[in-house]
């Protein structure tokens, strides 16, 4: 399989380190697809939760959802999403609503980038 270039735009954090994640899961492409599906489901659930939590200023949920998305993103070697999730977790910890809103927008944007990246398969 040829190495795939990360869709580098304006020098931001890479979307996915495909090589690293494949190494982690023993090179099984089918399994990676399965994991991506789980991730997408998780992402949908967590962002829905986050939308609600931001409206309700529930910083505990913001922190927790940020934390688990961070873990999931790290597992699949998705540095950009991991960074955005980390910012979300921090926003929850620091009870910073503006930062939480920014982080959510960033998460959604990076998620679109990921989908575009996966669509190139």
């Amino acid at each position, binding site marked *: 399989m040829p190495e795939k270039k990360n869709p580098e735009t304006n020098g931001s954090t890479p979307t996915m380190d495909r090589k690293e994640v494949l190494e982690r899961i023993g090179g099984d492409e089918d399994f990676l697809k399965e994991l991506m599906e789980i991730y997408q489901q*998780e992402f949908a659930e967590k962002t829905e939760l986050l939308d609600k939590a931001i409206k309700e200023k529930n910083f505990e949920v913001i922190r927790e959802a940020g934390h688990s998305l961070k*873990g999931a993103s790290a597992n699949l070697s998705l540095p950009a999403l991991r960074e955005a999730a980390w910012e979300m977790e921090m926003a929850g910890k620091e009870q910073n609503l503006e930062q939480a809103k920014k982080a959510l927008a960033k998460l959604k944007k990076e998620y679109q980038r990921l989908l575009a990246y996966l669509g190139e398969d």
Partner: protein
Amino acid sequence: MKNTNAEKPSLQERKFSVLIAEDDPLARRMLEKRLKDWGYTVFKAEEGKKALEILKRPEVRMAILDWMMPGLEGPEICSKLRQSKKPKYTYVILLTARDTSFDIIQGLEAGADDYMTKPINFMELRARLKTAHRILELEDHLLKTQKKLLKLATLDSLTGAWNRRTIFSFIREELERYRRENKPLGLLMIDLDNFKAINDTYGHQAGDAVLKNMVKMLKKNLRPYDRIGRYGGDGLLILLPSSDLFNTGLIASRLLEHIRKNKINFRHKATLSATLSIGGTSTDSLAQPSLEKLIQTADRALYLAKKLGRDRVILFGDSVKEEAKEKKHARKEKP
């Protein structure tokens, strides 16, 4: 690229089942897949209480526990596991997020054996599971050896009866109970009559077989809490808890009858008839019962049983001994 040869499960890795306790579905699935690839049988839990339930299963000997979980957290599960009475050791690896400042010491003190930071480096996890395997195998081997040694140290290898040291310590224990609860305790000393003749006629292997089978026959006629031990040669001791002199005599007569009426196997399909001489005593018939006193009294009674023509029970207590002292001529006959 599919799994390489190095990913194939080895026999060694196949033995123990592993619990994965992780609330993050992605991490849980990744762990499950990798562990199955390596040949492990996997159990999954997405929260703490279920994890603890699965850990009760005896075949689950390894656990990968996420620190942060709904219900019970990793360290709590760990300390609950350690407090439980699971007979075999379970090896626990705790998972923590790399950038959280959880106290590793706290996790280890809760009873974890190892910890790893997330995201999981699977090569490292595989190596650590191998270590877990090695430790569990060592532990199992040690327990097995310990059991074997205990058997060797307490049983008489020929007859399967308790050995001399062990039956003595049982008698001491029962004497303690007698002092505490005033429950009487009987002791029988038994000799197989004409054992030397059996050995001379049929050979020592036959003699050994007779002894072994005699112990079996006696055991069948004892109560579950009675204990039979080998005193030396063909001599046996039988400890009879909660038995006064009267009951001790009844049990002794029953044993005497049983051996007298039943043939003893000494070779395949070859049997012989034998009789016993039994000397007995009990704590209620002794002024100051002690291990030495019990043995000595039963021994004297046995001596008299043989002297009077074998195949009989003689019981002694202090009062009997006093009478015996009066008949001094009887004692002078002792060789």
